[in-house]
């Protein structure tokens, strides 16, 4: 029976979630009224087919009166049985499940607090194989594992929107895995914040001729903060991620150290993460090889084992930089490509899409020399090129420098998994510093993050100025 007694809306909801659209234009909305972490009222709206309406009505009846985290355990499989959905109605029921979980995520985002449980561990899940294995392992260890996935970006105009990390299918994959294990899953919709903190500065950086590294910003200043806040609301004191990094204790401060699998090391991406947050985080994969994790995932039959790996800047959605920037409102204007003496060698379609060090796509030559982008002069809309020798640097200025451990000598990395270059760090005023390198470094562009290691550990980090 479709129970319509919970049709309607909670007047001042503590959580609200919507789903729908698509070809059949079904629309479902849930509103939640909380007392503590108990769902005192669950109301649904549905302008939808019978299967969707049945699923929504069943979810509302099932969840009302129960705990928020128990509602977060209700998955599609349970709905299909409970609401007696026919096979043809599975996609329809999924719309109701999506809206329901959006309302739960919204309740957490709005500040709902779950009573603490020392046995609870939050697992940050991307929908990929690594975090899936962390969840499986955490469940096997006997913890109550709460999966948390961030919804960060949807760009339907990207060539393959599903390749963006945290795409709808990735959120569902993470949710399904939690539900298979009878564990709660929370999807936090942080799309507005993500745009403000990560995407807009990325676009602005390019517009100013810089080469910002959004992944480091995302992990360092956004994702870890957001999940850590959610972890505390979800009544857990510990959380885990699937990053291939390790933590090393330095006089009570946890330092990010390289993962054992050098080919998958992600320490660079976490260079800016606040050490205070790191006291609550565990990285179970840091001591493991990716290939072993993949084998184990396949043995566990994890669907995520075959999922697309996001390696590039996730929100580009499988596309090139220039069309993305144009979609974000950056105007690409043709202009000159010149050498360091100002001799015009050719033209470009828009200076902002170029990256220092870049060689391909220039279409200019000077004799037999291979030419690389040396820098972008954004105000003049000019790309300055030169030989690879002109890219070599021994001295790099940094801003916004964070120091975790003071060491005289450092090994500097300016991009993910690049070969470290030995040098020393000399501090200046106002969190500035200069890195003096012992050998040449290449392809260093303003806006990039400099991760400074002492051996395997990151002891300091900053943003390249020039």
């Amino acid at each position, binding site marked *: 029976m*479709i129970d*319509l007694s919970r049709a309607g809306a909670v007047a001042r909801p503590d959580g609200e979630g919507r789903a729908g659209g698509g070809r*059949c234009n079904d629309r479902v909305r849930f509103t939640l009224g909380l007392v503590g972490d108990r769902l005192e009222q669950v109301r649904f*709206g549905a302008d939808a*087919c019978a299967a969707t309406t049945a699923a929504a009505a069943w979810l509302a009846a099932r969840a009302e009166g129960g705990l928020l985290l128990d509602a977060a355990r209700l998955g599609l499989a349970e709905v299909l049985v409970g609401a007696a959905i026919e096979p043809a109605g599975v996609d329809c029921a999924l719309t109701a499940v999506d809206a329901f979980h959006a309302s739960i995520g919204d309740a957490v985002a709005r500040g709902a607090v779950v009573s603490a449980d020392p046995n609870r561990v939050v697992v940050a899940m991307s929908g990929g194989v690594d975090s899936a294995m962390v969840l499986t392992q955490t469940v096997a260890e006997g913890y109550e594992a709460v999966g948390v996935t961030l919804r960060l970006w949807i760009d339907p105009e990207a060539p393959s929107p599903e390749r963006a990390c945290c795409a709808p299918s990735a959120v569902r994959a993470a949710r399904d895995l939690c539900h298979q294990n009878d564990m709660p899953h929370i999807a936090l919709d942080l799309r507005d914040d993500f745009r403000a903190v990560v995407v807009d500065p990325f676009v602005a950086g390019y517009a100013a001729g810089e080469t910002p590294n959004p992944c480091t910003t995302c992990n360092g200043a956004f994702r870890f903060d957001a999940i850590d806040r959610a972890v505390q609301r979800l009544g857990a004191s510990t959380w885990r991620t699937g990053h291939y990094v390790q933590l090393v204790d330095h006089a009570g401060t946890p330092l990010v150290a390289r993962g054992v699998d050098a080919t998958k090391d992600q320490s660079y991406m976490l260079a800016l993460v606040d050490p205070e947050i790191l006291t609550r985080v565990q990285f179970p994969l840091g001591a493991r090889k990716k290939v072993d994790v993949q084998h184990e995932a396949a043995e566990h039959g994890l669907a995520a084992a075959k999922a697309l790996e996001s390696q590039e800047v996730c929100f580009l959605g499988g596309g090139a930089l220039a069309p993305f920037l144009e979609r974000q409102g950056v105007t690409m204007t043709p202009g000159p490509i010149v050498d360091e003496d100002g001799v015009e060698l050719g033209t470009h379609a828009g200076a902002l899409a170029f990256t220092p060090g870049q060689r391909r796509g220039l279409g200019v030559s000077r004799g037999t020399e291979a030419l690389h982008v040396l820098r972008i002069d954004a105000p003049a809309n000019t790309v300055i090129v030169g030989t690879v020798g002109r890219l070599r640097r021994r001295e790099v200025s940094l801003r916004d420098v964070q120091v975790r451990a003071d060491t005289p000598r450092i090994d500097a990395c300016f991009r993910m998994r690049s070969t470290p270059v030995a040098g020393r760090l000399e501090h200046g005023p106002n969190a500035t510093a200069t890195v003096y390198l012992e050998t040449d470094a290449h392809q260093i562009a303003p806006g990039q993050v400099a991760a400074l290691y002492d051996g395997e550990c990151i002891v300091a980090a900053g943003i390249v100025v020039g």
Partner: protein
Amino acid sequence: MGRGRVGQLSPAFPAAVTPQLFVRCDNARVIYLDHAATAPPEPRVVEAMLPHLTERFGNPSEPHALGRQARADLDAAREEIASLVGADPSDVVLTGGGTEADNLAVLGRAQGQPGRMVVSAIEHPAVRRTAEVLARRGWEIAVAPVLPNGRLDLIELWDLVQTGDALVCVMGASNVTGVVQPIADIAAICAEHAVPLHVDDVQTAAGAELDLSDLPGRVTIALAAHKLGGPRGVGAVIGTGVQSLDPIVFGGGQEGGLRSGTEDVAGAVALAAALRIRQGAQAPAERVRRAALRDDLEARLALPVVGVEVERLPGHALLLTGYRGDTVVRLFDERGIAISAGSACASGETLPDATLTAMDIHGDAARSAIRITLGPTSTAADVDAVVAAWTELAPALQLATEASA
């Protein structure tokens, strides 16, 4: 195995067929208001056909006593069918159902070189899809539009029909809206152009009087027994146009060579018995009774009615609920009331019904249509039950829809 004794039912066969058999489902009484989909079997029809499924089983083509008996039964049924619709018995071709009847009437005029056909915009798939097949074979298919009230636009039809066309196809009454077409006028237009007319009367026969005797030109109609309280798999093509059809099924040359295959005597007897109920002397009074129930239902539900301005089948109501039709159908079903939706959902997309599209009813309105169709078994209590269910459901549906935004 010894020879079975003729003249006795096997012990496994139900001793009595009671009306209750047809109104119970999962041991709960169902208020069946989906007569346009299929009519509940008429006990009188079942009774009439039973002997032909048991002891009177002979093949009408055989010269022995059982065969001659079967031939006599078949001839009698054919004569009754013909007389009930105003046709000649030699113009009755029995088929394996309504869809086959429509296929014979359309494809039976398309066995030569590709030509041109006129098909109305509101045809049942049995005609529409068949015309689409012909279009892929090189035929020109001209679509005759309907007015927003659901009736064929006769002025357009007059302009559309050309002398030399192979056929004009018009549904006698729509299975979606129940709107009845002015067949006499349409037949006159076709006769004027010397073009044969095929009328899909599968739905019409259940609720309107059929009389082919006055129609000019070469006319065929299609019937199906199950819409009349008879069994599935029994249909007929009837009318003066039958003689100029080419067969589409080949074999032993039964049914005047137009429908090979051993004749279904039980089916023919059942069709005759069903038509006797729906077209016989008692039928007009029953239609008046049913129309009064339908009008009462529509007045009390106070929902927009499709085709209300023109003549409709007496038990037929297509209503625009303002909510998703299939959801309303499911909610009624859960309350023991069987009705149907105006549009079907297929692979994640609700397809607007072609008939509603042709009547300029689109989008949310088309998707909100429900079809309530009454039959001879329907009662005032059924109408009360529908009104009570809707009174209960409408406020909740409104809440659900408003809260979805």
